[in-house]
């Protein structure tokens, strides 16, 4: 394991075009990660994602699109200070690379920047995890979502 970088690969039974939409469009991203997402899925678009409902528990995090090349590559930086442009050293870089594979798509995921960002970023992530990782939290949201998609003409 390379400390400081997270790498994953998974096969998805959907076309790269569909997977690209799911990993890049704010409306879809909200279904698998934050409670709110505001950005344009185009390069250099600066926006934010937010976790938690209500003012007390709400946590807003900066989010800047780096690369947007449908249906192959979508990458973004996050966790940089809101008043600073995202750059190496002040943010985590997340990259999704998609390639056609059989009847579906091979998704390669990396997150880098922990070494440059230091320990605090990992601690921050762990806090999010407690809020967002549980299936208890997401399953009730996913089921209506899938039904809604299926109901579309």
């Amino acid at each position, binding site marked *: 394991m390379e*400390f400081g970088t997270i790498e994953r690969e998974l096969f998805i039974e959907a076309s790269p075009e569909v997977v690209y939409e799911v990993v890049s469009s704010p409306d879809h991203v909200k279904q698998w990660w934050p409670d709110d997402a505001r950005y344009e899925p185009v390069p250099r678009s600066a926006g934010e994602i937010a976790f938690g409902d209500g003012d007390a528990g709400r946590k807003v995090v900066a989010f800047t699109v780096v690369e947007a090349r449908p249906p192959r590559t979508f990458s973004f930086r996050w966790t940089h200070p809101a008043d600073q442009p995202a750059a190496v050293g002040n943010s985590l870089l997340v990259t999704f690379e998609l390639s056609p594979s059989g009847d579906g798509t091979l998704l390669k995921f990396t997150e880098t920047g922990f070494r440059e960002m230091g320990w605090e970023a990992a601690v921050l*992530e*762990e806090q999010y995890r407690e809020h967002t990782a549980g299936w208890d939290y997401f399953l009730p949201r996913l089921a209506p979502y*899938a039904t809604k998609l299926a109901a579309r003409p």
Partner: protein
Amino acid sequence: MTAAVDDDLWSAIGDPTRRRMLDLLLVEGAGTATTLSRRLPAVAKHLGVLDRAGLVNATPAGREKRYQVDDAQLARAVAQLASVGSAWDARLRRIKRIAEAIERTQKN
């Protein structure tokens, strides 16, 4: 533990030479600057960083110091990153489910 100490721990373990040093110390049980310098460069500097981050413990051994890995501190560092990885595992599973649901809808 303070954030500053945590940063030290993270950057200590982020360096490839220091990870190799930890590997050697784990495999061999312990080492001194002399034994490590046969295999690695700039041993004194890297041992100092590991020591300050609490990742090794030093005991006097003649004119040298004998270094051993602090298992608890190393486990803590590894667990922290593993938890970040498992958070992404859960997100990627959701990405897969959503994309496959859309694909099925479009085919029908």
